């Protein structure tokens, strides 16, 4: 529809411009704050003209928070979660959409229900499992009386221990299962014509071949979209990495930011905190810029 509506155009452009300012202003403030020295950053109001201490502040933040190591940790963590989620959700959705097995609907609804149980809600049991992955098995053995039998007759005390605290696996694995991703894939798989699966069957391709040769290539937009969202989500995780990584060697960048934020009564070095924020923000910004096109395509529509 093409119409000439100069007034409406002007109004919409104004709203757009306002929206842009609202979205960008916080970033500008962070950037400007990161360029001032300790005195200027604490003036009220803070000067909105950038100062000359940008590089100096960035270096200070980098060294003080040991960001080289922490960014690498964050990268491993976020990539692990993103790809773990892509793989797990694609496989789950494949099972739900393409296979008829008993309990299929039950499984589907069980996954659905987990939408209502985000990490924050189940943080204590999740932590318990991460602290000792074999804990639940130990519990089962205790209840069944196997531990008791072993102790009494074999003289062996069964105590299964396998902890994941302070490890990448402990950081990544508990976050890998995702109902949202499963639904994204399920919706996509439902749009793939059944005849494609049947054609593959006639061509002699088994379920695994069909999955890798046909479904995965077709869903590359979805993979990109899901991986992007989940990368950003994982990068910004705070609570879980804080709990699991007691040893700073495995801490993520977002957690280390906390150490840059001035304590009450400490020196209010907001300029350095802001510089650190900028550094930690940068990778996510890059991912969004690079993946944007795919990301939108994967969420908006299936490929024609």
């Amino acid at each position, binding site marked *: 529809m093409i119409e000439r509506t100069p007034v409406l155009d002007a109004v919409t452009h104004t709203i757009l411009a306002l929206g842009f300012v609202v979205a960008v202003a916080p970033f500008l403030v962070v950037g400007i704050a990161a360029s001032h020295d300790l005195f200027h950053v604490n003036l009220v109001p803070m000067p909105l003209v950038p100062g000359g201490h940008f590089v100096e502040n960035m270096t200070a933040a980098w060294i003080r928070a040991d960001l080289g190591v922490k960014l690498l940790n964050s990268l491993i963590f976020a990539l692990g979660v993103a790809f773990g989620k892509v793989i797990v959700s694609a496989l789950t959705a494949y099972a739900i959409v393409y296979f008829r097995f008993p309990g299929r609907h039950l499984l589907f609804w069980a996954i659905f229900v987990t939408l209502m149980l985000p990490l924050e809600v189940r943080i204590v049991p999740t932590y318990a499992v991460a602290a000792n992955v074999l804990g639940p098995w130990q519990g089962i053995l205790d209840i069944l009386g196997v531990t008791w039998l072993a102790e009494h007759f074999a003289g062996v005390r069964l105590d299964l221990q396998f902890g994941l605290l302070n490890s990448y696996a402990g950081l990544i694995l508990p976050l890998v299962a995702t109902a949202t991703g499963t639904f994204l894939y399920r919706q996509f798989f439902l749009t793939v014509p059944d005849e*494609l699966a*049947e*054609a*593959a069957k*006639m061509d*002699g391709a088994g379920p695994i071949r069909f999955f890798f*040769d046909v479904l995965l290539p077709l869903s590359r937009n979805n993979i990109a979209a899901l991986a992007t969202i989940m990368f950003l989500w994982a990068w910004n995780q705070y609570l879980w990495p804080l709990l699991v990584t007691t040893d700073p060697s495995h801490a993520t960048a977002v957690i280390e930011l906390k150490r840059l934020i001035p304590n009450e009564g400490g020196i209010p070095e907001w300029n350095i905190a802001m510089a650190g924020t900028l550094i930690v923000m940068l990778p996510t910004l890059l991912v969004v810029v690079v993946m944007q096109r795919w990301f939108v395509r994967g969420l908006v529509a299936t*490929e024609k």
Partner: protein
Amino acid sequence: MADISLSRVAKSFGRTTVVRPLDLDIRSGEFIVVLGPSGCGKSTLLRMIAGLEEISGGSISIGGRVVDALEPRERGCAMVFQNYALYPHMTVADNIGYALKVAGVGRTERRARVEAVAATLGLEGLLDRRPAQLSGGQRQRVAMGRAMIRSPQVFLFDEPLSNLDAKLRVQMRIEIRRLHDRLAATSIFVTHDQVEAMTLADRIVVLDAGRIEQVGTPSEVYHRPATRFVAGFLGSPPMNLIDATVGSDGTLEFADGSALSVPGVRAEPGRAVTLGIRPEAMAVGAMALDRPVQGRFALEFVEHLGPTALAHGRFADAAFVAQVPGELRTGATEGLAFGCDPTALHLFDRETGRRIDDAIAAGAAPATTSVEAASAEHH
């Protein structure tokens, strides 16, 4: 090359029966068309042969081997789907060669075989394109190429022409028949289009509500329909079907009190029947006067088709169509006379819908030289 034999094959989804137990023997190299209205179970039948659908009862054997428990890939069948079902992310060459890739055929041999198949289908220049960049007819060809590449014993076609425009459909129809003759495989072709059925088939299987109504050559099915359903389904315009009762003196009596004198009618008097007359088996106007069976119907309007026209009207209080010469404009107010030979009449039992064989003595028809009579002489 493989015979296909279905014995008591049935399919039901839960409590809905889609295909009733049916028997069918298909000779090796035969071109079978399964014809029926939508929902008659014809696609289900095809998919059961392909192995895409489990059978609920009976047994299928291909080439003397019972295939009930075999996976589709082990049955030696290839299938062309209605929507082609090409893999959208693969090139034409990859689409055609996918079955070979799965089978572990090496890259060079695969390329050679794909090129050979592409050459027979006129796809040489398109091998590097994606399905989205092809026209409907080209996609259809790729789908056929994909079926041909494994040199299957059996070709299964699931309404492959229904997504093409009319002109392409005619062209692809001829190509499919040509391919069948050259590849000498057994073909089963499912369609609801009677023209495709008549032109392609060695034998037609007419299916209705999951039941085989008739199996026969196109000529048999057209000239001697076994049931009232087949009579009404084949032919365009369809056969006129009018409920009647056999009278005592060589007549058929209709519900509105009118009667038609049929020399040589043999069905027992009083039997409830359905009379069938093909629109194209009749002569009208002055030409009707020398025919043994003569009647008159009220003309309502004439549809001109070019060489011929269709006269629509009412006879014995039922809709009635006769094919008439193209120059006929309107009819007289007292109605249009029609005439035909007794052999052009079909009688069906009104209860069972089955054809009443030898209901009309063929000898009663006087020898005529008209075109209509000549076509009726087949039986």
